[in-house]
């Protein structure tokens, strides 16, 4: 049985050659040398003819067995080389994930926009709806209709910008009163009530307002958010409830509010509303000047004269109004130390508050 020996010998040689092959090319050579049509195996198997017919199946089976083993060894080795090659390629494709991303520069909305949005959403949950009005107003809407007649000292509380007319003097509106930059968002109350004529009115008026005052703590343009609720029965206690809700939503659930008498011609009774200091929780600190309280809101019950000017009958309706300065709240909430930063438009400031 020389042939069986020869098969075993070839199998051994071939497997060894496969084992020592170090490259895919070497492996291919082994394949050609042993397994191709003219390879050593084929050569060897030519002598099968000479084997007796009774031994032939045994030799044939042995040859197949050897070929199967060699095929398996070859495939395994080929796969190993392929894996190796792929690995090498992947390694060569390595990137540094810490290199900078391809991203747009950090954009941002202005702090005033952000805070206004935050505040508006709280009152929207209470059913308040946005209303607006022009920044260039008539004295009627800005003052007269709000119970601030020309002879009233309360007008001194608001240094007013007047809009110039053709003659260089103050321009006159179609209602024959002067044209001003609105000093507060309250004229929106008047415009809304005049348009709506009947209760309920439940509006929020966000916007820019203007006063002729410019120093460290005053900006000639600043922002307010005003609220007005008018219905058949509205109480002072509800004003308080509304503002308490707001204060706790915005400054945290443990916030306290304090109301004290004050004077705004368009409300009666009028109130200043303080919230417990957000910095020291009411213990007293530099921000609240050791009082534990921060003055951030004004409000009160709508004055009958305002209803009258706005075309409503004060015997049939009641209402409350409140207003707040956005700059002050923004500075408190975000720790901005200087009002002027808000209007300097320095990108280093603008970028800080995100979208």
């Amino acid at each position, binding site marked *: 049985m020389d042939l069986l020996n020869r098969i075993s010998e070839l199998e051994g040689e071939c497997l060894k050659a496969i084992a020592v092959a170090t490259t895919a090319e070497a492996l291919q050579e082994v394949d050609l040398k042993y397994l191709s049509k003219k390879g050593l195996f084929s050569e060897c198997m030519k002598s099968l003819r000479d084997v007796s017919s009774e031994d032939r199946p045994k030799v044939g089976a042995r040859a197949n067995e050897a070929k199967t083993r060699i095929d398996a060894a070859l495939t395994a080795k080929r796969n190993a080389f392929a894996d190796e090659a792929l690995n090498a390629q992947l390694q060569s494709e390595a990137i540094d994930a810490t290199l900078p991303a391809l991203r747009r520069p950090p954009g941002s909305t202005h702090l005033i926009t952000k805070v206004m949005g935050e505040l508006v959403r709280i009152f929207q949950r209470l059913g308040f*709806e946005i209303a607006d009005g022009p920044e260039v107003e008539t004295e009627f809407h800005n003052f007269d209709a709000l119970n601030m007649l020309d002879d009233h000292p309360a007008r001194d509380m608001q240094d007013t910008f007047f809009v*110039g007319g053709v003659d260089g003097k103050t321009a006159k509106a179609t209602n024959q009163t002067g044209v001003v930059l609105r000093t507060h968002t309250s004229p929106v109350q008047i415009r809304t009530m005049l348009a709506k004529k009947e209760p309920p009115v439940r509006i929020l008026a966000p916007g820019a307002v203007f006063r002729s005052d410019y120093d460290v703590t005053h900006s000639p343009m600043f922002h307010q958010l005003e609220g007005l609720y008018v219905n058949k029965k509205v109480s002072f206690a509800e004003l*308080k409830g509304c503002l308490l809700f707001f204060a706790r939503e915005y400054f945290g659930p443990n916030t306290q509010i304090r109301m004290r008498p004050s004077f705004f011609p368009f409300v009666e009774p009028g109130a200043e509303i303080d919230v417990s200091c957000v910095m020291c929780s009411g213990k007293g600190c530099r921000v609240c000047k050791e009082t534990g309280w921060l003055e951030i809101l004004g409000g009160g*019950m709508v004055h009958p004269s305002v209803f009258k000017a706005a075309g409503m009958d004060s015997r049939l309706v009641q209402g409350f109004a409140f207003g707040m300065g956005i700059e002050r709240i923004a500075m408190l909430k975000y720790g901005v130390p200087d009002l002027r930063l808000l209007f300097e438009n320095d990108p280093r400031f603008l970028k800080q508050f995100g979208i």
Partner: protein
Amino acid sequence: MKISVNWLSKYMDVAPLRADLSGVLARLTMRGLEVEAVHDLSKGFEKVITAQIEARDKHPNADRLSVCRVNTGKETLQIVCGAQNMKAGDKVALAQIGAHLPINLKIEKSKIRDVESFGMLCSETELAIADKSEGILILPANAPVGLPLAQYLERNDVVFTLNVTPNRGDALSHWGVARELAALLGQTLKQPTIQLKEDKTTTASKYKVSVESSGGTERCFQYHARAINGVKVGASPQWLKTALEAVGQRSINNVVDITNFILLELGQPLHAFDSDKLRGGAIFARSAKSGEKIPLLDGTEIQLTAEDAVIADAERPVALAGVMGGGNSEVTETTKNILLEGAQFLPASVRKTARRFQKQTDSSYRFERQVDARQVTYALDRAAQLIQEVAGGVVLAGRVSAYSKQGENLVKGPLRSIQLSIDEMNSFLGTELSRERTVEMLESIGFTGKGAGSGMLDIEVPSYRPDVQIVEDLYEEVVRVLGYNSIVASVPVLSDLPATTSGAEKRFAAVENVKKSLARAGFNEALHFAFVSEELNKKWGEGPGVRLANPLNEEFTTLKSSLLTGLVPSFVQAIYRQEPNVRMFEVRPVFYPDPASETGVTEQWRVALIASGRSYSNALEKQDRDFDFYCMKGVVEELLDEMGVRGLRYQNFEKADPRFHPTQSVRIVMGKGPSGMIARLHPKYESEWKWKKPVFVAEFSLERVLEVAKTERKYVAISKFPKVVRELSIVADRTLSADRIVTTVQKHGKPLVEAVQVVDLFSSDKLGAGKMSVSISMTLADPMRTLEETVLEGVQQKIIQGLSKDLGVELRK
């Protein structure tokens, strides 16, 4: 308004106030008289005493210094002093070692030019009781020695500052504040009684007064006068000086000081005339004649209008009523006889006059806020008594008085009465107050409640509260006394939500969306004032803008006509600070004159952007590109797409805009017409700002966007058949816009051409002078069937012919 605690002690027991100063003042704040500041006057006076100079010798080593021996009452100290105005025997203010003066000077033992000094003799400046002083303070010869100076100067006082709201004219005096405090502390006030020693001769025998109204306007409600003859004008006594100085008033002379004292005591302004300077015995409270002139106490002369009220003698105005006395009848050191005036004027008139002439005074301030109509004569009599006490003289018997109709009613008519329903009050306030409790609270502050049973009350308003006019004012008084904090909060039940969303609501949401989108696109929101200088508006604006009549300064004269007036200067600021990639935007209204509108001004909400530098932040340079025109166009288009603008078009400027690069600027067209622009700023600015990169801007009308935007979306069937993409390359003049090629292809490719896009563009000499090659990619589809090659060929031929016919362009060979 400054209030001295010592002064209050004339009318009430201030012991409870002193015992719990901050507590009581906090309660005053909660009652509506806001305490803004508290100042302890004795601060800085510790270890400062009255002392007497026993001897003054020359300093052995310095000509200008003296060495004094100063008696403190306990010992004699050696003090070196640089002043020249003292002599042995003088009483002085000595700051002993350890004192810490109000000007923040600490007194220590020292050696001055080898001579030891055990303290310092103080000047008024060093004690912060005067702004200026010469030499040291020499006290009156009768001053005791060894007394704490604070006690001697009656500076053991606390002064607090009240922020009095314009409705509370009643609290602009010590008496008024005492009234509020007494109510708070449950005390009864002591009112000083009048004890006048009057002469037999009557004022009426010398003077007549009359009140005239003009054109139905009563500018003077009541006018009273008293004559005092033979006064000796001179320095005020210490008590008077101390009282005035404590609240920051300068002492002038005894007569003027008393009128000021009464103003601060009772809130009633008074005026003293030198009666020898008055011509004739008749005094008129009348309207000024137009053009009439009056010299005022402050040395100015003004020309009056018929809207001003004056006090006049027979010949001329001698005082600007309620505002300031006349220089022609002023009380001076030589004055002997005076006529003392007490009056009440129409608040609106005083206010207008004071504002017209820019003469806001303590007097006009109080008349504007309404004085107590029933206290005028009391104030006048009390002043006469005090003048007699401090300046001597003979007070003539009685007053001369005149009233207008309204004034007579205010003084002699019934007090105002307001009806109050307990139920309505409780409903309004959200309280459950009883009738008794309500009356009790109102009576504690001087109101009286009458009316029997059934929850209705007639409340009588005291004359010092003319601001209380309607029942809501009474509600405030009730809740003020009750304490605002006693109100139990209740959140309103809102069952009737608005049925539709208002336009304003939509706009607010749209503005917020725009801002957030642009922020996500890498832009920073800026916020500029609505006004700029006229020059900036001219340079970066789009129209004349709207001038303010009273601008703050030259920087803020004009309501802006473009948001670039703010963005460009802020951009320049940023690049000057070496910011490499600036991208900013702003959203707010701009202003245009519009004679047809209510105010003559129209506001238009705008969105504006500015950008320069690189497209990405921090990216490797090879991956980045500079922000260019098409980047800006992309930002604008993405935003407008998101907002629902369809059919956005571009249009060249009819005329070059000097702000922009003439061939790199385009108008944005939405709906009816031009509604904005995208542009590169004119390159001359790049060199002006020494900035090496192009700067791009865009601005458009937000109103127009909201007008044309369609946000509703509807499902469109998705075709089951494949799409085919074909490319065409054509040669065209370089001036031909891509937009025209695209629309021509669309026009001729209907209805199969779904989308057209320019994919390549180059120019080359080989194409011919001024020519370019444009490659277009077209997507074709038929919703009903697969497109056959013959059909495609047909469409393509139609398009090629169309391009040739409409634009004269040929296929590239």
